[in-house]
């Protein structure tokens, strides 16, 4: 593996040589499109039946009470675990295929000669989809500098790549909703773009070691393997096997751990004396879900936040809290008025005397 054989440079145009895939057609066939669409339809059919199935499993098959904590927790576990696993499988497969289009060699070619600002944004976006690990970070940096990619743009790429992870994105979407997932992605990209731009402005090129800078002058050739659709699908499948195979246990543990959540939620609501903004969207019917099955806050379905509560005990808790709040407010107003009347009465008496 560690041989240092000299590779003869080829004279391909643009310094990016393309090697044809050894087997398989280059273009996607009608059969492959049909298989992909059929797979997607099966996935959607299964995904859309998760909620009815979880209700059936928890409340009919097991015969658990709908208002009970055990029933709500079981329903949530049966609904949420396959939901996150299915989302994870689909997105990891799609991202695995997308990643096959953005090899480090191609990314380097895209970024070569890019100016700052637009280059920072593009490199941060490419950092999310380009596969590379800590083994390739330093050689990749050398390659970018060699290709004439500005230092700030290179750093935007190197910062964004490990910071914004597509798996974390899917898990956040599945467990906490699209708003949190979007916040995670936008924050990560913003940090990478701004940090890269600042590094670019600092003009730190003179800190690069001489031997790396000398490589810029040397002839460089990038070799890229042309992949067939079959290869891309295989890469997507490998990503699913690798990533889902590693994280499934955490998904199950996370969904199982959230079984406590409805109880905590009810206690929190009870203590708060009402459904505050943090609690409004959390109905025990959805366990730890911050949103309903259509990813809307449960309380936002109509004007009455108590509608967000899915069970009678919850509605009762909420309304009791609201009543208590009104009573406190009325009591306070009554005290104020009484104090005012007393002071007026005292004033009248003093005038009479």
């Amino acid at each position, binding site marked *: *593996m*560690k041989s*240092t054989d*000299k*590779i003869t*440079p080829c004279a391909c145009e643009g310094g990016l040589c393309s090697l044809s895939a050894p087997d398989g057609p280059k273009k996607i066939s009608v059969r492959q499109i049909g298989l992909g669409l059929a797979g997607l339809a099966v996935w959607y059919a299964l995904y859309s039946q998760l909620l009815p199935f979880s209700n059936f499993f928890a409340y009919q098959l097991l015969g658990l009470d709908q208002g009970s904590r055990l029933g709500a927790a079981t329903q949530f576990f049966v609904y949420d675990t396959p939901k996150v696993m299915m989302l994870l499988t689909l997105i990891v497969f799609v991202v695995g295929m997308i990643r096959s289009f953005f*090899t*480090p*060699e191609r990314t380097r070619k895209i970024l070569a000669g890019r100016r700052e600002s637009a280059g920072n944004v593009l490199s941060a976006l490419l950092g999310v989809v380009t*596969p*590379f*690990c*800590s*083994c*390739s*970070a*330093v*050689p*990749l940096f*050398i*390659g970018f500098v*060699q290709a004439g990619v500005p230092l700030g743009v290179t750093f935007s790429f190197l910062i964004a790549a*490990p910071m914004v992870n597509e798996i974390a994105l899917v898990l956040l979407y599945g467990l906490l909703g699209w708003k949190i997932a979007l916040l995670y992605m936008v924050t990560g990209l913003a940090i990478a773009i701004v940090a890269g731009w600042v590094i670019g402005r600092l003009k730190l090129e003179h800190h690069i*070691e*001489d*031997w*790396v800078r*000398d*490589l810029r002058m*040397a*002839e*460089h*050739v990038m*070799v890229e393997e042309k992949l067939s659709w079959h290869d891309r699908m295989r*890469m997507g499948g*490998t990503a699913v096997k*690798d990533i889902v195979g590693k994280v499934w246990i955490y998904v199950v543990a996370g969904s199982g751990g959230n079984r406590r959540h409805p109880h905590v939620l009810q206690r929190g609501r009870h203590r708060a004396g009402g459904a505050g903004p943090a609690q409004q969207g959390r109905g025990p019917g959805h366990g730890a879900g911050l949103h309903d099955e259509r990813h809307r806050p449960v309380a936002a379905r109509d004007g009455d936040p108590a509608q967000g509560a899915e069970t009678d005990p919850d509605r009762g808790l909420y309304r009791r809290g609201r009543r208590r709040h009104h009573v406190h407010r009325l009591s306070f107003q009554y005290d104020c008025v009484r104090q005012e009347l007393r002071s007026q009465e005292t004033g009248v008496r003093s005038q009479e005397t």
Partner: protein
Amino acid sequence: MTPPHKHMSEEKELVCYCFSYSRQEIREDAVTHGRSTIMERIMAESKAGGCNCAARNPKSR
């Protein structure tokens, strides 16, 4: 040129724990070939599923 403050042990410090490439080897490879052939090998190995930074790198990444 390596700065004088850099110690030899720092130069031999591993960058790639999966295939045992040190900083010095990466530099020598780039200087010898005019490009990083180590990177090409790492990329080829990664595609073949031989890279396992999460397990082998002390920083688990």
